[in-house]
């Protein structure tokens, strides 16, 4: 069985800082990580490979430095890393990104065998859109399974797959045909540590590097800014509220007195509150 996992290298958002004057992102010196949601997808892919045999190919699109994320994924246990990098891809929105990735998955299929499953994380932590997974599924006519909590069964002979999917207000048990695209929910598995052999292999492995042309993309007008229907017109910092919080005096008053003060202020701005609270309290 052949599984492709799409990953993205993202800035470690906990350490992103905004320039106080220009309101631009200060990228310099911000460490990058594999999008944490993608690791659950990678682990699920490795688990299926270990169970059913086969190979896991990890695919990422990004600048040349994104090879680091592929080496990390190989170090966790993936078999092959493919880096899709080209200046034509710069400025891609989710539609253009899904186009380029879908083309690369197609090329991966031609080169190493058509994948039975394509995995992505449920979303990235920098874009938070959750749109690229469904975009790839649609472009490759794969069955789309988003927010999957567990892969329960894969039947390679009859080409079916059964999963548990997080739905509105409950969990769906879905059965569909492979090839399928799965976006994996977080916290559904425990991401393994690679063996020392894997880590060494990851550091030394020869990665497959494709540009638009070698990935088989003949029409670059679908890529990058040109292939993106959405246009970012403005980036700005949120407006501060005109008035700051009214500070309740603390001084050396005891906590009980301050609390009474807070309640009095609250009842003053929300006159209906006390009656509502009493109704709730009476219902206990």
């Amino acid at each position, binding site marked *: 069985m052949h599984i492709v996992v799409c990953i993205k290298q993202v800035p470690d958002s906990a350490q992103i800082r905004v320039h106080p004057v220009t309101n631009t992102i200060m990228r310099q010196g911000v460490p990058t990580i594999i999008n944490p949601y993608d690791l659950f997808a990678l682990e699920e892919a490795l688990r299926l490979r270990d169970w059913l045999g086969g190979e896991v190919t990890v695919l990422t699109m990004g600048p040349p430095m994104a090879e680091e994320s592929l080496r990390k994924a190989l170090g966790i246990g993936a078999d092959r890393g493919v880096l899709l990098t080209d200046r034509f891809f710069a400025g891609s929105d989710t539609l253009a990104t899904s186009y380029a990735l879908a083309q690369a998955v197609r090329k991966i299929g031609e080169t190493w065998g058509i994948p039975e499953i394509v995995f992505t994380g449920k979303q990235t932590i920098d874009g938070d859109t959750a749109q690229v997974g469904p975009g790839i599924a649609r472009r490759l006519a794969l069955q789309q399974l988003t927010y999957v909590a567990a892969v329960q069964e894969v039947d390679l002979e009859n080409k079916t797959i059964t999963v548990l999917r997080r739905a509105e207000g409950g969990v*769906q048990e879905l059965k569909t045909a492979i090839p399928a695209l799965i976006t994996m929910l977080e916290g559904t598995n425990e991401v393994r540590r690679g063996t020392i052999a894997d880590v060494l292999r990851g550091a030394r492995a020869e990665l497959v590097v494709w540009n638009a042309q070698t990935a088989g993309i003949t029409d670059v007008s679908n890529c990058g800014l040109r292939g993106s229907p959405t*246009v970012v017109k403005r980036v700005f910092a949120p407006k501060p509220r005109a008035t700051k919080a009214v500070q309740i005096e603390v001084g050396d008053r005891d906590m009980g007195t301050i609390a009474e003060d807070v309640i009095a202020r609250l009842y003053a701005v929300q006159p209906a509150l006390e009656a509502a609270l009493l109704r709730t309290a009476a219902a206990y």
Partner: protein
Amino acid sequence: MSTAPTPPAAASRAGMKKELPERFKSYKHVWVFIEYEHGEIHPVSLELLGEGRKLADKLGVELIGAVLGGNRAAMQDAVVEAWEYGADLVYVVADPTLEHYRNDPYTRVMTDLVNNYKPEIILLGATVLGRDLAGAVATTLLTGLTADCTELAIDDEGSLAATRPTFGGSLLCTIHTLNFRPQMATVRPRVMAMPGRTKGRQGRVIEHAANLQEFDIITKVLRFLPDRNSNKVQLAYADIVVAGGLGLRSPENLQLVRALAEVLGGEWGGSRPLVQKGWMEAERQIGQTGKTIRPKIYIAAGISGAIQHRVGVEGADTIIAINTDKNAPIFDFAHFGVVTNAIEFLPALTTAFRKRLSVNRLAS
């Protein structure tokens, strides 16, 4: 790296004056995808009808709902509700294949509706269902989709200006889909206010045939296991919310937050770092990547108020912030502030509320 010709400079596209291609000029009206499951409309769809009404009025066009489901008779209540929340017209697609949500039939029907009736704007809730559907529909139509918008407006040229947090919620950006139609956007539950309901308000309805056969749909729903007391919904729609942050210093102190929430008959939650540290489940995270809340009262204890938290709570009527740092950003958007240690202050506030409520109950 590549031998292909140089692409146009990045800035030229964004700066280009857009003329909408001829084939898109007939695209008109604002649509809301009405999320209808288990016999009910998801509240986010009603919030979007309120927001869609404003956009439609600004453009001078109609507000239209699209509702898909399995049983036409049972869907009539949803049609009436859509009218009463502002829809002028509702497209109804009833077909047994649409009884339970599945991506493929829903995507086919929505795409078919768009190609037939040509809306200029489609709004969907950013729920698991809405996100699953929106991405597939936008890709099929090859149009622009902006996720998790916090503000929607129509600019001077009649284009949808969709504003959303970016870079993990540290900045906002405004996104346009200039050359393509429809312009699509999703909005998370509770980000927009619930509009008023006009009882008896009526509109038109158009039935549209799905033309689907069950044997043609590959994915089957084997079972549906409903959540028991989904606290998700309760937190997003609670009137009173008490939340804790890292200022509580230890997971045990979350008990102080729970105790106050209980006395007030409200819900409790926390900021993102508490989930990352494993102090509480992700379901209770409040903020841009967690739940957006719009309670009457929000009490934030030991939360510094990063932008990603702020965008999730700004809809609250009254925000009370407790923090030892008088310069914490939370005091920039809270209504009342108490510069003190939340660990000591929360029990005092709980006791004071309890006393007030029991005294007044005896008196009344």
